[in-house]
């Protein structure tokens, strides 16, 4: 799947203390307070991912994310290091989002301008090239519209690949589908 889509800049979960996610998981099992570090690492990226999955309101995103972290905490011992923690938590988030849509009987609407706040800042910035900002918003809307016309399974893969910068293996682990299906 080769698409000429600009990859949005990612806020990759960065640890200040260089402690791996896997170590934090082990530490959290013995000390609940360590879970804060995992929450703070993944709060923003997952919030943005939920937006891209089509969860429109901030309240809904917060509710879903809260459930995600509760589930992560409850099931920490299920985490297997054959999988990256990042893929595991994204999978839980994706499943929670799908449960949310099923309960609401709503169809997810793809939204890619998750960096809206940074664009607003750019517009406020007098030195910034506002026409470039407008062009970016426009292209984002066009891509959103195009993606909305695809089937859900294609959209899920494209969002993870081009907007969340995930590898094929990671997409396979997040969506729990074989790698061949992701390629196809």
């Amino acid at each position, binding site marked *: 799947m080769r698409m000429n889509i600009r990859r949005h800049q990612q806020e990759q979960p960065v640890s200040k203390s260089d402690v791996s996610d896997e170590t*934090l998981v082990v530490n959290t099992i013995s000390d*609940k307070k360590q*879970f*804060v570090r995992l929450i*703070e690492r993944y709060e923003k990226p997952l919030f943005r991912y939920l937006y891209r999955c089509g969860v429109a309101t901030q309240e809904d995103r917060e509710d879903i994310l809260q459930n995600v972290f509760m589930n992560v905490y*409850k099931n920490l*011992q299920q985490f297997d290091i054959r999988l990256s923690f990042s893929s595991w938590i994204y999978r839980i988030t994706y499943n929670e989002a799908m449960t949310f849509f099923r309960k609401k009987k709503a169809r997810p609407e793809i939204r890619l301008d998750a960096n809206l706040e940074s664009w607003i800042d750019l517009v406020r910035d007098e030195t910034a090239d506002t026409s470039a900002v407008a062009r970016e918003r426009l292209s984002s809307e066009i891509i959103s519209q195009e993606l909305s016309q695809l089937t859900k399974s294609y959209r899920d893969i494209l969002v993870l690949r081009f907007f969340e910068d995930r590898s094929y293996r990671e997409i*396979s682990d997040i969506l729990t589908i074989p790698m061949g299906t992701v390629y196809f």
Partner: protein
Amino acid sequence: MTLHNFSSPIIAKTPFAKKVLRKIDDEHIAVRPRWIFLLRNRLLWAFAFLAVLVASVATAAMFFVLIHMDWQHALITHRTWIGFLRDSLPFMWIGILILFSGIGYAHIRTTAYGYRYPLVLSLIGIAVAVCGLGIIFFMSGFGQIIEENAHEYLPWYESVLYEKQSWLNGPNEELLLGAVTLQDNTMDHSQALANVTTA
């Protein structure tokens, strides 16, 4: 992985993190023990194996029926092949075979890393296992036992092996079921027919 000691105290910086931690405390949420997940995964594999086993037994019974279907008399007892197959194929065993192979696949798919196996590979694997075990069961006579027991104990099931006797019992179609009790080699064929006519 070793435990990492952090020198600085851990304080939730974002309101969201505080909220999540508070909820974990308020609802007394605890980390589930690891054995639950291991047990669940092993049970899934066990159910998958059990489903494949049931499918294999059905395959053994299916082989038994297919081999004893009297293919050579197909167009004597029936006008068309379609009619013969409709009346003879062991649909119950084929149904059980497909159903339990599907159940087996679904269980494998839900194991921890079951999703990583490609669909075609999984289906081929299940088919090979089902056929392999089915042949072993058939060769050991298990297929016949299953078929006969199903005929005897399942009220809705009538084995085609018993049903086919009625197909041969049709004098109007020049079919006559019977057992040869005496064979007289001194009598020629025309004499035998004459005897039948006079009788």
